[in-house]
């Protein structure tokens, strides 16, 4: 699972280097939707820094700005004011094609509604970003099959999304998001439509990827399981950060054979942070 030119984070390397830029940094970001009868301030003067390898959950009531913030970080929508940096690059200064390239090479998305492409099989969906990146066919298949084996999708490679259960679809979506080894995965309510067992399994996959490969995860969630297992819990209320708490995590009992116990220190596990 190696991209030429990009060092693969190992378990040891999952700890961020001291001089690496933050995975995400937002500075005084506003997102205002102009609509009648009055504009809606979805995100208000929000400053947040997420270090590489963090496993962050953003919680908050509906309308608190979680999804908008994810969209802003993913470059899917532009801030009304403020700056957003991803891997040191200022999104507000990037052109459309440059943003697209950044998304393709550095960011993976997992959506609440799975959003698999219905005309592609599970395997084709999972390898889609690799295809766009021009990864050779053998390598693509090898990576996807290995990942499918790990997340329990073996044998389902040829199925179209309509022939997969919700949990299976979401696992394919996670595979699609991480197969290219992005530095950052943005997951919008990834477990909202899943039963508890499937949701747990999926979380374990993401925890393992975070732990072993140093992938930074930022979730928006209402799910207590996600909040409980996040290293850092950011509460949003009315588009602002109400609290930002780093928390200790105990996952060993439920990790099964998918994720090793996170006995090591979770990045930035002590409480407190930029948004506090």
């Amino acid at each position, binding site marked *: 699972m190696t991209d030429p030119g990009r060092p693969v984070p190992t378990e040891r390397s999952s700890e961020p280097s001291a001089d690496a830029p933050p995975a995400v940094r937002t500075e005084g970001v506003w997102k205002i939707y102009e609509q009648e009868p009055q504009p809606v301030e979805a995100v208000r003067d929000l400053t947040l820094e997420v270090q590489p390898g963090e496993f962050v959950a953003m919680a908050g009531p509906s309308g608190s700005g979680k999804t*908008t913030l994810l*969209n802003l970080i993913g470059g899917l929508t532009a801030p009304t004011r403020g700056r957003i940096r991803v891997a040191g690059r200022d999104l507000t200064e990037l052109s459309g094609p440059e943003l697209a390239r950044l998304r393709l090479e550095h960011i993976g998305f997992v959506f*609440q509604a799975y959003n698999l492409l219905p005309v592609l099989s599970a395997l084709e969906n999972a390898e*889609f970003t690799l*295809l766009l990146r021009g990864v050779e066919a053998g390598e693509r298949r090898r990576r996807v099959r290995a990942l499918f084996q790990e997340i329990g999708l073996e044998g389902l490679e040829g199925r179209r999304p309509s022939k997969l259960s919700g949990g299976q679809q979401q696992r394919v979506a996670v595979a699609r998001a991480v197969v290219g080894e992005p530095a950052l995965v943005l997951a*919008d309510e990834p477990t909202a439509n899943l039963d508890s067992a499937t949701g747990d399994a999926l979380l374990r996959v993401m925890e393992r990827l975070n732990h072993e490969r140093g992938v930074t995860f930022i979730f928006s969630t209402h799910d207590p399981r996600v909040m409980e297992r996040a290293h850092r819990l950011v509460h949003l209320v009315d588009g602002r950060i109400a609290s930002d708490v780093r928390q200790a995590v105990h996952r060993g009992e439920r990790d099964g054979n998918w994720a090793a116990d996170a006995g090591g220190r979770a990045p930035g596990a002590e409480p407190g942070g930029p948004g506090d």
Partner: protein
Amino acid sequence: MRARWLVLARLALRNTLRQARRSALTASAMVVGLALLMMSRAIGDGAHEQWITDGVRLALGHVALEAPGWQASGSLDDRLDSAQVSAARRAVAELSAPGRTGRPVRVRAAAVRLTVSGLASSPGSAVPVRIEGVDPSAEAAFSELDERLASGRYLEPSDRLAAFVGAGLADRLGLHLGSRLVLTAQGAAGDVAEQLVRVRGLFRTGIPEVDDGLVQIPLSTARQWLGTPGAATAVSVLLGSSQSTSDAVEALRARLGSHPATAADGPGDPPGAGAPGIRVLSWKQASPELESAVRIDDFGFYVFMVVLFAIVALAVLNAVLMSVLDREREFGVLEALGLTRAETGSVVFTEGLLLAVLSGILGVALGFGVTWLLWRHGLDLSALYGNDLSISGAVINPVIVPIFRPARVAEAAAYVVVIGGLASLYPARVAMRIDVAEALKFDR
């Protein structure tokens, strides 16, 4: 980069096939439109070819070689002398000779005619007529007058004082088969000459000016009577297809322009008898009214084509646009995964183009099939127009045989593909401009 475009093309193909019913309905509009277009174009071309062929067989042919002033004066003074007639005949014979440079031209027949205006008199009355001296064998191959026999027979090579007379004229002069008829016209020397002939056959074309005013007599008789040995007013050429006309005209002009006999009066010609050269006229110049009829009909076809393409374009636009609006979330996902807006638009454009290309292939196949059926039996319009359909003074065969022209088929198919592509541009633009964050909202 190439791999990336292949991915997008594959995605577009899958999307096209995924909406099978919608794609099939849209494609069917294009397929039927193209097939209709091909069929109507083939019928139109067949009808035009028939109009032209039928018209030129009763007139001066696809190409006429004559003295420069004859069209305007109709006078024997503006005739081709014997040397010019020989040169013209040789040039015509060379048109279909093997080894000739340029595109091949098939000559179906060539007829030498000596035509004058005069009077036809019977004991009871006299009527102004056009008198054509013709070579019976060549004329039978060239004109269809012999096929319009009302009674008697057509002229034969051994005939000397025979006449083939329009049935209307015969009625007006009270002539019957075997009746004697006196033809009067001004001869080459300027004197008024008379010639007695006997009616051997009557024809009826359905065209009043021909049936009431034309008399054909043997060429040798006409030359002797008018004092114009070896002369003719025109050498008329009937080609395999009207499409070859410009090639034939060009070749004849090139050939005759360099022939000494065409440059000046030949030795022994009477003073002022011959024009300085031979004028080569296409049927369009000789029968401008026939060309106008074809042009007007073509214009009608183009109007039909524009309407048809507008319908096809709207069908494609509607289907592709609906498909785009149904799939906003999908396009949002594509952009989230790393496609640029241009690439997202190109997926939609490719879908429309694929549909158009596929429809083009099927439309050509259907068009061939339908037109082939019509070609086998011909399209009989006699129930609509009867057997005396005439256009610009020419009686037209009411059974139209469609003509396939590869260039026409390629043109029609290209139009459909271009229309399909153009009609996809707007939906592609819509796909490019979607609000990704809005499209990805879970509760949409």
